[in-house]
């Protein structure tokens, strides 16, 4: 149902929300020794989610999870680079807003159709 109503945008919104959590985790662990920063490859994660919605159970729930490659490795093994994380967070927030407005548009369309305006 969700799939038919919102198309790709429902799944995309979930992936964007997950990615926001992952990047926030990186920011939180900016000073943790040995922490390896992670990120979600949006395309891969979205494909996996859509495949799962179609019934492919074999899809890995961790699909699209990638390790961040540091520009300069630090001595304590931490791979968080705050400039990267901040840009990624901002980019993800904008993309989330965009996806949200698509979902809102769909909802508005349906509401208008129901009210018969």
């Amino acid at each position, binding site marked *: 149902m969700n799939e038919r109503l919102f198309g790709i945008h429902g799944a995309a*919104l979930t992936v964007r929300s*997950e990615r*926001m*959590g*992952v*990047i*926030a*985790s*990186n*920011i*939180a*662990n*900016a*000073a*943790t*020794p*040995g*922490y390896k920063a*992670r990120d979600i490859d949006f395309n891969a994660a979205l494909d996996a989610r859509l495949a799962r919605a179609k019934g492919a159970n074999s899809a890995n729930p961790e699909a699209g999870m990638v390790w961040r490659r540091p520009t300069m490795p630090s001595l304590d093994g931490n791979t968080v680079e*705050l400039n990267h994380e*901040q840009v990624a*967070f*901002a980019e993800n*927030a904008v993309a*989330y*807003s965009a996806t*949200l407005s698509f*979902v*809102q548009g769909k*909802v*508005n369309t349906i*509401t208008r159709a129901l009210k018969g305006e």
Partner: protein
Amino acid sequence: MPDRTPMTLFSMTTRAMSAQMVRMNAATSNLANAGSVSSTEEGAYRPIRAVFAVELDKASGLAGVTTGGLVRAETAPTKRHDPSHPLADKDGFVFEAPVDETAEMVEIMESARQYQNMVQALQTAKQLMLETLRSQ
């Protein structure tokens, strides 16, 4: 912890900010004790440092941060010859706390920046969540 509520973006941020607070308090204690002297080498103040550890929540995929504890630095206290000092030992030496004020100030600044970063991230996330909730 066995029966813990799943980690949300909010609880994760709270924990991260608490961890930064512990770190900042440790650095402030070090600064406060800079220049304190003792009559024995063992009695001298040693700087403390907060050690962070990752706290991975498998259910939500979020990685929080906790303070794994405080460690005392192994730096030897500065031995200074000052026979007129009331705390001087029989040879006229006092032991000064080995606190590097500059390093502590940098630590506090870095901690404050990371705290700010966390607040900013939380604000953005909260705003997006509210937008999602309010959309009709």
